[in-house]
């Protein structure tokens, strides 16, 4: 298990990462795992009827991937807050890049809270953006 200890400073950029192209199978898996069976995410005809160029990824799947950069640090803290605005569609085949930067650090009774401005981009547009608050427990707080 990764034991990376967070050592962030305000202004630091998170290393951006580009995820593998979105596949229909991934959307089917997410539909099953989340219980969101809205067919615009899995069935071409339904997506076309809704005026889309094809099936689109669930917004909440994109929101979930925006938490990926924080996963290696779970031994030292957790995502206490997440705020995501959806601003574009993610289609099958899109390669989504996620990234962000540290915008704030605040002491709290439980440790220190880092606020990140985060984004997801499909190469053409920002498809989602927002903030993540990551609480680092007191004993891991530097």
């Amino acid at each position: 298990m990764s034991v990376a200890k967070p050592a962030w400073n305000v202004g630091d950029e998170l290393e951006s990462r580009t995820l593998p192209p979105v596949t229909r199978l991934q959307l089917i898996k997410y539909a099953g795992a989340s219980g969101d069976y809205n067919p615009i995410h899995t069935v071409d005809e339904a997506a076309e009827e809704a005026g889309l160029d094809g099936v689109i990824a669930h917004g909440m799947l994109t929101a979930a991937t925006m938490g990926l950069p924080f996963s290696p640090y779970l031994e030292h803290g957790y995502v206490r807050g997440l705020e995501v605005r959806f601003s574009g569609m993610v289609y099958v085949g899109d390669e989504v890049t996620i990234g962000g930067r540290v915008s704030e650090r605040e002491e709290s009774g439980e440790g220190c809270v880092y606020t990140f401005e985060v984004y997801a981009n499909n190469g053409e547009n920002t498809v989602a953006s927002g903030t993540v608050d990551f609480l680092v427990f007191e004993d891991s707080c530097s």
Partner: protein
Amino acid sequence: MSLERFIGHRSEPVTNVVEKGAVKKFAEAIGDPNPLYVDEEAAKASRYGALISPPTFPRTFEYGEVEGLGPPGQGYIHGEHRIRYERPLFVGEELSCYAEVTDYYEKEGREGPLGFLISERVGESLEGERIFTMLDTAVLTPAMRESLES
């Protein structure tokens, strides 16, 4: 009748269990099979002492239906999602969950007024301790609004 009439309406609470298999399947589907989500031994040895769930997992729970509306905001365009935790969520926990419509307003769009339905979803322990609060914005096109308002 405008959807404003649902403001302040709340669902009956529904009991949900944070299921181990569901968390594992979810973690895999989002491409984040962190041992603390999926590996019981690793989780037991961690500071949490038990498996925890990914940040967006609570959106998969059932929150009940607002009478006359259904699960608020479901089936429309997802505009915004927010969640705030009071503490991590543990696998095996039982939660009492409900949803409430907290606001509705309209803004002029290209093809007529768009509706914005804001709903809050809350997860509490069975003892009434709040664990998380979600706030979602659903966007309704004129066609979606008409089908609800008729």
